[in-house]
């Protein structure tokens, strides 16, 4: 059933302010680093066309403001995300500790309330997926170019965390030195595409269920 139509993969980057979300996005899409990005206000995105296993996909990468209070208005772009990239700064333990709440935020905002984007969540038995798998997550520890003695979070600690959260893929990068950025986003693209295809696939089977859900909603309005 693999359709050959052109796919748009929506990827959203979350994480504390100043961990390098904008820099990662620009390094990946434009192959550029600038020390003088301004703090992101609101949201913006860049697009990049990539080949994933001979399939041409367009990645739409959303960059968001890091301060938590600005997230509440951002539900609009959580919707329909195929993959979420959680970023922290390996030299800043606070930003690492915040990963959990960023992850929760995304899961709450993006999936359960949005059955259209994640139809298989409401498909009872066809997809025995654990909670950890239904939204594709990737964790990136950024700024590994900074001298070793400033590093606060070891690779081991980060990997343990990711394993405990259902084997979230983990990458360490430097947006400044372009280290590992390409590799991380390749996995992100692959994961997002798998997610997109899973939705397509389950969509075919869950149609009646969706109708049922719609009826229920209509029922309330009557």
């Amino acid at each position, binding site marked *: 059933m693999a359709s050959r139509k052109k796919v748009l993969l929506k990827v959203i980057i979350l994480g504390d*302010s100043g961990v390098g979300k904008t820099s990662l996005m620009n390094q990946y899409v434009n192959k550029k680093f600038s*020390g003088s990005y*301004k*703090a992101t206000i609101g*949201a913006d995105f860049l697009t990049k066309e990539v080949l994933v296993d001979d399939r041409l996909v367009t990645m739409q990468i959303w960059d968001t403001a890091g*301060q938590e209070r*600005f997230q509440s*208005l951002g539900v609009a772009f959580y919707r329909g995300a195929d993959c979420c990239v959680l970023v922290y700064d390996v030299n800043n333990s*606070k930003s690492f500790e915040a990963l959990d709440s960023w992850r929760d935020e995304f899961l709450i905002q993006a999936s359960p309330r949005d059955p259209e984007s994640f139809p298989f969540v409401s498909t009872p038995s066809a997809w025995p997926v654990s909670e950890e798998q239904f939204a594709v997550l990737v964790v990136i520890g950024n700024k590994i170019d*900074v001298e070793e003695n400033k590093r606060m979070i070891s690779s081991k600690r980060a990997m343990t965390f990711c394993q405990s959260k259902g084997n979230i893929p983990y990458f360490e990068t430097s947006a400044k030195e372009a280290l590992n950025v390409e590799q991380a986003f390749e996995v992100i693209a692959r994961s997002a595409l798998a997610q997109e295809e899973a939705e397509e696939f389950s969509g075919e089977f869950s149609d009646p269920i969706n109708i049922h859900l719609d009826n229920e909603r209509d029922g309330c309005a009557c």
Partner: protein
Amino acid sequence: MAGPVKYTPPPSPPSPTASFYDISDDDEDEYNTIAHARSGRGVKLLYSKSKVYVHPTPSAKDNIAGFIALIQQKPKPGPNHSTTTHSRNDASSFLLAWVPEASLGDAYSTYVKVDLADDDSPPRQRYLVPPLPTTTTHRDPIGLYSFAVPVSEIYSLLVRPPSLGWWFGSVVINTRSGDSFPALFFHDSECESTILQKKKRVRESFDPFDHDGSLFWGGDEVLRWLRTYVEVQRSSVDRNVYLINPSEEDQLSFGRGLNAGDGTLSKAQPEATAAGPNAAGQQRDASMDPFMKTLKETRWKVLEQLSKITTFTRRTANEIADNPRIPPQVRRLMKNPEVQTLQDEFDSARLYLARWAMSIAEQGEKDRNQRIWTAQDVLESENSSVGDFEILELETGNLAIQERRRIVTLAEWEGFFDPVSGRLHLTVEEVKERIFHGGLDPNDGARKEAWLFLLGVYPWESSHEERQAIMNSKRDEYIRLKAGWWERMVDGNSTSEEYENWKEQRNRIEKDVHRTDRTIPLFAGEDIPHPDPDSPFADTGTNVHLEQMKDMLLTYNEYNPDLGYVQGMSDLLAPLYAVMQDDAVAFWAFVGFMDRMERNFLRDQSGMRSQLLALDHLVQLMDPQLYVHLQSADSTNFFFFFRMLLVWYKREFEWGDVLRLWEALWTDYFSSSFHLFIALAILEKHRDVIMDHLKHFDEVLKYINELSNTMDLVPILTRAESLFHRFERSVQVIDKKDNFPAPSAHQRRPASSSPDSAGKGKSPQRPTVGSSSGVRPPSALQQAIDKDKPKVISPELRELLRKDVPWRRQQTS
């Protein structure tokens, strides 16, 4: 073949007047009797130029080579002959013609001879050629056939000089009846006479350029020919347009601008000043170059005209064509079949075109800022549904606008105050009006003073001495506040939880200050080592102003602990500090600014939500069409205005424009929510592009985000002001209507929806919450009746009329 020579060379220079060349009675007799070999009649070929092409298709192989020529024929006899104006009469005997080489036959050699006649002045020798069918309309859009247009019928020439490396120079004849003939392209490199004329120029002046630096080309010659006989006036509105024998009316609307002089040329002026395109024209050519490559050469004139009114959709084109305000020249152009074809053809490239048109229009706006705004200027830069409205606005106060836009200098500012007491002797409204419209002088220190009033540090009614006292105590308080966090945090007199929170705030501030306005020289330097070796910026260094910024923001964190530091605040503080250059003064200015901006930074984001909602209502009322479109694009959350509203367009305009905008907004001159009218003005400016091309939320957001640093502030301010007035009037109209509801609906209302209205004492009017004038909420029935127009002024909208700042934080002093 030439007729007998009976001609005295005219004295030259200066060029004689046209009447001098009128054919004398003698001439005329003779002229009449000369018979051309074939046709039996002949006309005088005054000038010709070879290798002038029509390009009927984009393919070069289809180009048709020909001659452009100026021909003199015997004036038509008629009863009106003696009563018509002299110059018109002259002009009617001259024909500007184009003939394909292939159709010339025997006359070819004559055309070549005239072309090569090495003569700047009118030809000594008279050459006769077969008459050409006189035409005044252009029926064949391909233009395969020759034409000869009486010069009296020519309204204007659209003259486009060659641009370096890309296209040929060209001339388009526009007639008084509104037709445009096909563009004639001057292949100068093939044209022997042009090559010779260029060489001659180099020989004589060692300079192939004319006095204003333009390269000589074939089209210059055509203008020179015409100037010999008629008045040729370069339009100041469009530098590529040359009006032929313009009427006074034409001159007013199209011709001499206020900066004329360089634009006005007539036959009486010496040849040396005959201008080619000026530098501005050249610039425009260059800027259009890459775009034009995608177009068919023959069509440039149409696009150029279109770009002025930035109208690419048929819908608007028709509107424009029917609008009686539009100058007839433009209206005619819009109805030209060629324009229509073009619109169809480029439908697919519309987004690109629209963006480009927008940029051209903006450039045009910039150019025009040198002059007084006229209604026509606005019209040309408008492409929105509110265009008409703004014309009305501007027509009523045209001259006043420039006066009002005069900048407020420190001297003028100081003049507002009594020299002895230092109290304001104008009304606050008067001062605000001046600042709103004129802005404060950015260079003479006026802002340093005036901003403290606008931001509430100084009361408007204060005296000089009172202000000094205020400033002294504010300085003390700043020191006290700053010492407060310093002692607790840096000297370690705090609980560990307090300290952790403070450290988090400090790190946040640190990160943001180091990425705020670093392109401004004041904040650029990294000349001192960072005081904290653990800072992520320890390696890059810092400067004293960045450190002051951090201290001020930490002090604000101390001053307003409930709010603390939130991202975006550093953007708001930087301009204040840059202007004040004094940390204590800048701090209190910032406190004043934050009093009104605080709602943007609340944890629950309620302030941002309410402003986005007000914007939603505003667009619904002011541009329902656009609103419906935004709805269909899932964009009525107006999230794409989040950044603009959060930091008041700080990221959208250049630094200088931001300062100018903020001081206008601080006045609350029309409304304390004027920043929402700025948003509306931006939206309206781009409404056609949005409606025609942007179908999804992400597209809208991207488009709006990318407007950053492309916008020119003053036109947006002007537009926002117009929109505010229109909004005010709309509210009045709706309020009036609501006071006189349809009687039938009113009578049925108690039975259907208001069971308790039997109580006679109760007013049927239930005032809307927050509404000052008691707008009646429509009943269900009424709503059903006016389903199409549920126009009620919501409390959110009514608040936009207020000049106070209702959400302002209560001063804690």
